[in-house]
């Protein structure tokens, strides 16, 4: 009897000790810098810092699917694939591609090489153009890139291109505008005030919702963010290829929006600012001249009527 009582007392003591120790450790764990409990993800646990590496692979895999498997390996010439074509075709990402995208394999080196090309995808196609069938009616098949993009964004939430590409194809080829907006807002949660994401979100409002007011607000916010992010940087960095591309796109789209709203003065201002960073300013100058003529005719018309 005495033994049983001692045993129960010891057990109780151990339980109390365990609970106390757990409470103490919990307090320590909550204040520990390595605690990821607030944003616990099994991928974090399994992959750790290597996540971005895997994210890059999955992003690339999405582009492989965009080409239906016709894609250069590390042994091929990859200069025409520096920027993923699925991103380049959104119009929101600056292209760094050069060279022949259809001929990265080069000429066959030998009989085996010639023969081998019958057993692999051997023609440059894009899924939004029907892929290997070349049937434009099958442009919805671009959906096949989405699983890889989703995984990539889960692994590297700071890569804004993943959200932009996902949202673009969702809204343009699959008619899922609400989902596209959701993806971009998810991206903005991870990358607050990112000008690229704001630019794409503005396009959703302008091109799909036809909500000029919101589109203008978003693009102006993107411009402000672009200026804040590039403020204090040397010109070489401030007007790098990617930064110039984004600024030009923002100014061009704001100009188009103002034209659509009938605000030609504001449109001319934005076209002029776009011209300053455009690789082909002469084309924009012609458009600005046309707009000025239209604006002058419009201003003179009421005057002529009153006379």
């Amino acid at each position: 009897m005495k033994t049983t009582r001692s045993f129960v007392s010891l057990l109780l003591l151990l339980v109390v000790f365990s609970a106390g120790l757990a409470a103490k450790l919990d307090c320590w764990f909550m204040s520990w810098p390595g605690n990821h409990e607030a944003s616990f993800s099994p991928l974090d646990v399994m992959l750790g810092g290597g996540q971005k590496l895997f994210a890059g692979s999955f992003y690339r895999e999405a582009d492989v699917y965009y080409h239906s498997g016709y894609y250069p390996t590390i042994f091929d010439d990859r200069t025409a694939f520096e920027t993923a074509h699925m991103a380049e075709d959104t119009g929101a990402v600056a292209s760094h591609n050069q060279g022949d995208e259809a001929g990265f394999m080069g000429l066959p080196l030998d009989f085996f090489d010639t023969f081998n090309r019958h057993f692999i995808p051997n023609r440059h196609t894009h899924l939004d153009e029907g892929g290997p069938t070349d049937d434009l009616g099958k442009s919805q098949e671009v959906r096949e890139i989405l699983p890889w993009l989703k995984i990539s964004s889960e692994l590297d939430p700071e890569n804004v291109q993943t959200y932009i590409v996902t949202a673009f194809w969702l809204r343009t080829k699959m008619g899922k505008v609400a989902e596209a907006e959701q993806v971009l807002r998810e991206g903005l949660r991870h990358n607050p005030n990112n000008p690229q994401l704001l630019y794409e979100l503005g396009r959703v409002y302008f091109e799909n919702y036809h909500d000029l007011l919101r589109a203008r607000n978003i693009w102006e916010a993107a411009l402000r963010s672009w200026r804040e992010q590039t403020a204090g940087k040397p010109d070489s960095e401030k007007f790098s290829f990617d930064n110039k591309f984004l600024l030009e796109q923002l100014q061009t789209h704001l100009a188009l929006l103002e034209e659509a709203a009938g605000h030609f003065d504001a449109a001319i201002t934005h076209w002029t600012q776009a011209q300053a960073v455009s690789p082909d300013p002469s084309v924009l100058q012609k458009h600005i001249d046309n707009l000025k003529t239209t604006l002058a005719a419009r201003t003179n018309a009421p005057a002529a009527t009153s006379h």
Partner: protein
Amino acid sequence: MNKIFAISNVVLLEMYRRKDFYVLFIVTALITAVMGSVTFFKDAQIVRYLKAICLFLIWASSLFIAIGATARQIPAERESRTLFPLMAKPVSRAQILLGKFLGCWLACGAALVIFYIFFGCIAAAREHQWPLADYFQAWALHWAMLAVVVAMTLFGSLVLTAVSSNITITFIATVAILLVGRYLHKVALSMTEPSAIIVTSLYYVIPHLELFDMRDLIVHNWPLIPWGIWLIALVYAAAYTALLLLLSWLVFRRKVL
């Protein structure tokens, strides 16, 4: 010929009793089912990622079955001393070798049929189409590739002493050929002598197993390979298999058991 079939029949029965195939098939089906249960952006028609995963698992499983089963054939017979009563019968060493090869290869073919039927069902469930000719081409090329792998493993089991080393070396060689075999000549061009000539020679000597990998074409719904080209690939596999079996026979014929 009857003797060869009799030996191959015994190998088939043994493979039928082993659990390798069942385990690998269940694992393939389970992983595919779990991956298939995931939906992206509420779109139930996204299928290519699933086809790619399923085909990858089928390829990996088929290599495990082919190499694992073949590598054990002759060493196991030797260890359990059942090879001696077999050789005491009026059966030549060539017939034993061919019987073993045929048994393993047929077993791989049967396993592949089941795997490809499963793959076809999974793809049809989402794509609502049955490209049977494509699947037939893919299955036949895959099976032809396994003939080379089985012959290579059989040769390895006569040259290498341990089963484990044979399995490891054959598996690494097969995977290496599948991954980089196609690019060896291109790599050699950027090398200096004598490594360039060695790599180029290697390129021409190795069996180009990557020829038989139609996965990308199947996953991305590319058109059929011209039947003439497909037939040449089968003849290429047959030639390599025959060569490897001949080498195996040359070793086996003089081998002291």
